[in-house]
């Protein structure tokens, strides 16, 4: 009897050849590109006089550099304008499908591909972006690549890569009320550490994962990379299939049943052999907030920032750096930390369900007068849906700025940046030094519901006090 994980099955299916020294040549079923990591790859193709091998297998959108206030062309920022023009030209020249601003389908690449039904179980998916792991929520094997590998995928539809080991992260029971997928994944990264996933794919499984919606599953897989795992995935189930059904690029009519039959066969076999298994109790997870400069440095809302002596020798070096950068004292409570900026958006938490829960928290309340708060929907589709539901109005009424879709202040490649050592409550994925655009800016990662609560109170708050 077969004892293969989904990872093994998908990997073996896509393996083209064994390369000298032990790496594999893997076929990439879906290649996603954006304006930041693709121009040099197209340049390299030109230098080598190569063509795009399967233009139909690559899909493009623009997200990282787009302004979210005024999107009229040309962009005010000349460099940003040059990048979008380069992408437009490359897609036209190589006949690559491009979802541009105003198409109704533009947005953050990891929000767009699932909502178009491009992301499906059993595919290999690559993109020049580390959060490509998001797509693993559908039972695909998806990982970030660099620009040279983008070039390889364009030219050959394959890459050279070493096979990963698989660690199953079994999440028992279910999340408590007011605790979200973001809290769970921050908790996992804190438990295992930011480098535990190096060399591994993470399989998220167990009752707590089964319980999650597809969008929550995307949040979990999205942040696999913050735990060091280039790839994270969840076995597909009925929720996966019903999410995909009727999407623009989903299998249609007679193909649908064939697709489902095949997708069902991909699940990790019972008694699969894993390289490692970790079990945790999801019911014990509480609203979680980062206090440091890596996504692993997090605590529950009612905990104190750890003392140096409470940390393992390996964690001490970065902890010292974090206290200093964040201007936090060991032992200080994270709750009630004043915040200057509140950001809801990103490929981690910029989907419709994220906006719905945040809107629920702030409805009929006002953003604290000391706080700049803004919402950046993950895609044009998310923005449209939110408007249909009247969420944009709820945000505006409470004092949030309502913006156009893009990556925005997750990485601050547009004009949305922290200033000086401002503190941001952010629904994004990275609290690295300088990540949100100011070399001394400070980021506290949390769920979108927690960001909403922080915006109202002007300080880090327990969202459970807002939700009854």
């Amino acid at each position, binding site marked *: 009897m077969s004892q293969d994980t989904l990872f093994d099955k998908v990997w073996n299916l896509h393996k083209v050849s064994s390369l000298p020294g*032990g790496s594999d040549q893997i076929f990439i079923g879906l290649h996603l590109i954006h304006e930041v990591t693709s121009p040099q790859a197209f*340049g390299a193709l030109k230098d080598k006089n190569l063509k795009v091998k399967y233009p139909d297998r690559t899909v493009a959108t623009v997200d990282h550099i787009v302004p979210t206030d005024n999107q009229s062309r040309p962009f005010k920022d000349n*460099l940003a304008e040059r990048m979008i023009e380069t992408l437009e030209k490359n897609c036209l020249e190589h006949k690559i499908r491009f979802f541009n601003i105003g198409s109704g389908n533009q947005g953050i690449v990891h929000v767009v591909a699932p909502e178009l039904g491009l992301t499906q179980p059993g595919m290999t998916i690559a993109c020049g972006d580390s959060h490509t792991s998001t797509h693993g929520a559908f039972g695909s094997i998806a990982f970030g690549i660099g620009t040279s590998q983008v070039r390889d995928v364009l030219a050959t539809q*394959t890459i050279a890569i070493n096979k990963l080991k698989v660690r199953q992260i079994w999440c028992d029971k279910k999340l408590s009320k007011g605790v979200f997928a973001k809290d769970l994944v921050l908790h996992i990264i804190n438990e295992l550490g930011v480098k535990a996933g*190096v060399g591994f794919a993470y399989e998220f499984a167990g009752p707590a994962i089964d319980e999650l919606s597809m969008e929550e599953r995307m949040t979990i897989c999205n942040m696999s990379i913050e735990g060091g795992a280039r790839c994270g995935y969840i076995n597909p189930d009925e929720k996966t299939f019903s999410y995909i059904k009727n999407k623009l690029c989903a299998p249609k009519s007679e193909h649908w049943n064939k697709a489902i039959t095949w997708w069902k066969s991909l699940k990790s076999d019972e008694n699969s052999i894993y390289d490692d298994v970790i079990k945790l109790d999801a019911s014990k997870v509480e609203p979680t907030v980062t206090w440091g400069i890596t996504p692993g440095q997090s605590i529950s809302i009612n905990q104190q920032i750890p003392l140096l002596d409470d940390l393992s020798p*390996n964690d001490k070096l*970065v902890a010292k750096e974090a206290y200093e950068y964040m201007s936090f004292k060991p032992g200080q409570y994270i709750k009630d930390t004043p915040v200057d900026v509140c950001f809801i958006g990103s490929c981690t938490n910029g989907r419709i369900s994220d906006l719905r829960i945040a809107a629920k928290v702030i409805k009929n309340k006002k953003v604290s007068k000391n706080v700049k708060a803004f919402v950046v929907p993950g895609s044009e589709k998310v923005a449209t849906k939110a408007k249909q539901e009247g969420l944009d109005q709820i945000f505006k009424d409470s004092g949030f700025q309502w913006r156009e879709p893009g990556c925005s202040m997750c990485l601050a490649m547009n004009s949305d940046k922290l200033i000086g050592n401002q503190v941001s409550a952010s629904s994004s994925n990275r609290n690295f*030094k300088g*990540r949100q655009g100011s070399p001394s800016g400070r980021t506290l990662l949390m769920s979108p519901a927690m960001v909403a609560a922080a915006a109202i109170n002007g300080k880090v708050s327990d969202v459970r006090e807002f939700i009854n």
Partner: protein
Amino acid sequence: MKSEFTQPIGKISNINGQCIPLIGNDIDTDRIIPARFLKCVNFDSLGESVFEDDRKSLKGRHPFDLEKNKNASILIVNSNFGCGSSREHAPQALMRWGIKAIIGESFADIFYSNCIAIGIPCFTLSKKYIEQMQNYCDDQFLFLEIDLKTSLAKSNDLNLNLEIRESSRKMFLSGEWDATSRLLDNENLIDNKFNQLPYIKFNSHYS
């Protein structure tokens, strides 16, 4: 910043140079090259911006600003170096500054692949030896001769057994680290694979 930069090409079997230590765990690619420098359509000018924010905050005391390190080419780092964003701009910036090889306690996966793909061998070594080397560099020059055939690094006083992934080592020695042509050699196999994949047939987008 060195004056002329030449991209590595072909077989890489020896790297000789001065070591430059950079202390810290979990140094992410946003720190190696902040996102604002990603607004470019080529990698040419990245070398001067490597570690821009860290360097500014250390006001000339950052290892990449010290006069004694200006000709160094072998970077000595601690654990999980290059975590975070997949931006190849990070190793490209290091390479354009003058880095030709990196020795560390451990590397993030995507950063490691990016280094291999552009011709920067990354070696691992235990924490103990890394710290010894970093300390040594504090007040003296450490020159290493690295031989990829044996994975040995030698200096006047040191003999180190470096570790490197076997597939990477072979690719450097054969010159196939620039993988495109090696992958294209299997064009028939790629086409066969495309035709075998079940989902190619049932995707309506690709009719």
